[in-house]
């Protein structure tokens, strides 16, 4: 399977899920991720799996909960307003410590918004749109290739930590066709003694997010979850850096915004301006220490995002006031303009950042 093929990001993701052993896929259609259910409706029967178009997003996420409780690899995908509807189920899955893969191919919001690509669900993804103290691992691909690679990885991470793993891609990443080399299966296997597989010959397993007895059961459960989240925060530190070693101006971006920022770094370097790019590949856990280490040597950090100031909050938390942080955000399907990024960095050079207050 090492041949390079031209694939739409959404289809590369779908095939990667099958490569990873996903045989249960439940979804409700929404643009711009419809190629995923369309692909699955064709491929799942071929590989002996289940494609089920649910009657709603709530039903789809509940089916994922059920399938995951049965110990099989399950996935659902949607786009922004559809993901909003799934949040209750995601909280239940997190509380029940079930592994699954979720995909959000983001479109513009709020509300029904529009169908062009955007990154406005950063808060929804990283802060948890559902109730309670829970986390989901969030991976941020920047190409069709990464959509495929991260999806295979996501299933292993989900099983390893019994946690939902969210692939967060903007609509352009999902809609774009690019050269892709489909990944190989990792071959990792995970024992699931907790799964509901029929209790014949063993004591029964119970999967629930409701914890009533004893009185401190729910706090104990939360403490246990926090221990797990701490462990994940130690183990998952994923970044991609570009010309950051001697960067005087550091750009932070993910997804399509990062692709444009990378080009801006090239152009600025051609002009002799020392720009660099820090691209978080995991948005939760956010690679805060790594960003802090790199940003402290820069005069200023520019966050470029296809939202109006969401990623920038994690950037500010990471540098903790030590470095000035600026924001260039576009929304509603607009992509950051290459020239605008270049001009912004050039303006820092001109101003020599003497009168700019830390924001």
């Amino acid at each position, binding site marked *: 399977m090492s041949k390079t093929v*031209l694939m739409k990001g959404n289809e590369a993701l779908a095939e990667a899920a099958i490569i990873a052993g996903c045989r249960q896929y439940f979804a409700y259609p929404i643009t711009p991720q419809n190629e995923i259910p369309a692909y699955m409706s064709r491929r799942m029967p071929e590989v002996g799996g289940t494609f089920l178009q649910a009657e709603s997003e709530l039903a789809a996420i509940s089916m994922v909960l059920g399938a995951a409780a049965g110990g099989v690899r399950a996935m659902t995908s949607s786009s922004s307003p559809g993901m909003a509807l799934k949040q209750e189920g995601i909280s239940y899955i997190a509380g029940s410590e079930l592994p699954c893969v979720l995909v959000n191919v983001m479109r513009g919001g709020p509300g029904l918004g*529009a169908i062009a690509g955007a990154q406005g669900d950063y808060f929804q993804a990283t802060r948890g749109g559902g109730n309670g103290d829970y986390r989901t691992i969030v991976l941020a691909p920047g190409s069709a290739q990464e959509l495929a690679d991260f999806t295979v990885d996501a299933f292993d991470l989900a099983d390893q930590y019994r946690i939902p793993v969210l692939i967060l891609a903007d609509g*352009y990443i999902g*809609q774009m*066709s*690019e*050269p892709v080399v489909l990944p190989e299966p990792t071959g990792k296997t995970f024992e699931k003694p907790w799964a509901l597989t029929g209790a014949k010959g063993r004591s029964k397993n119970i999967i629930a997010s409701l914890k009533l007895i004893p009185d401190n059961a729910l706090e104990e459960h939360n403490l246990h979850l926090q221990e797990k989240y701490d462990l994940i925060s130690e183990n998952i530190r994923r970044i991609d850096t570009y010309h950051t070693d001697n960067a005087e101006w550091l750009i932070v971006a993910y997804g399509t915004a990062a692709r444009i920022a990378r080009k801006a770094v*090239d152009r600025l370097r051609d002009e002799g301006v020392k720009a660099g790019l820090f691209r978080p590949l995991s948005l939760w856990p956010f690679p805060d220490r790594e960003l802090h280490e790199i940003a402290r040597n820069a005069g200023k950090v520019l966050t470029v995002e296809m939202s109006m100031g969401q990623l920038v909050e994690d950037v500010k938390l990471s540098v903790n006031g030590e470095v000035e942080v600026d924001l260039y955000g576009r929304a509603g399907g607009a*992509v950051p303009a290459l020239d605008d990024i270049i001009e912004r960095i050039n303006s820092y050079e001109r101003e020599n950042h003497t009168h700019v207050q830390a924001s």
Partner: protein
Amino acid sequence: MTEELIIAGFGGQGVLLTGRLLCVAAMRQGKHVSHIPSYGAEMRGGTANCSVVISDEEIASPVIERPSIVIALNGPSVAKFESRIRPGGLLIWNSSLVKMAPTRSDLVLIPLDATDLSLAEGTERGANMAAIGALLKLKPDLVPMDAVEAALDEVISARNRKHNPVNRRILHAGYEITEKINAA
């Protein structure tokens, strides 16, 4: 080399396929490529279009504001995209169908009887092939003809592959007539 192309026409003129064909051919030549269809409000009103980037460098955004090349297979596409082409850019327009000819003086304007060239081979659905032929003649560094011919067998579904000999003939007809337009 970086070319940013928009290919536009009526639904059914093979606009998306044209983009994929160029991408696969260029990809097999080791180029970086991206292809993204237009969708949403843009799509309403009968024109479909796709954006294609072919480059020696990594591609930043697949979304094109100011294309260097536009292939316009129908009138609405000329109306929509002529003004967006970069100065010095190329507009190949389907003079078989387009009533209002493009007027900009800072572009290379190539009128191509694409639908007529296709009809000469007994189909009206090959106008896109004629346009690719013209493009290859005008932009020889973009991707070679033999790579596009090879890509036909990869991109066209098995069901429609039987039409590829016709596709190839229209491709060459577009190439050759553009040679004549250029010489004239």
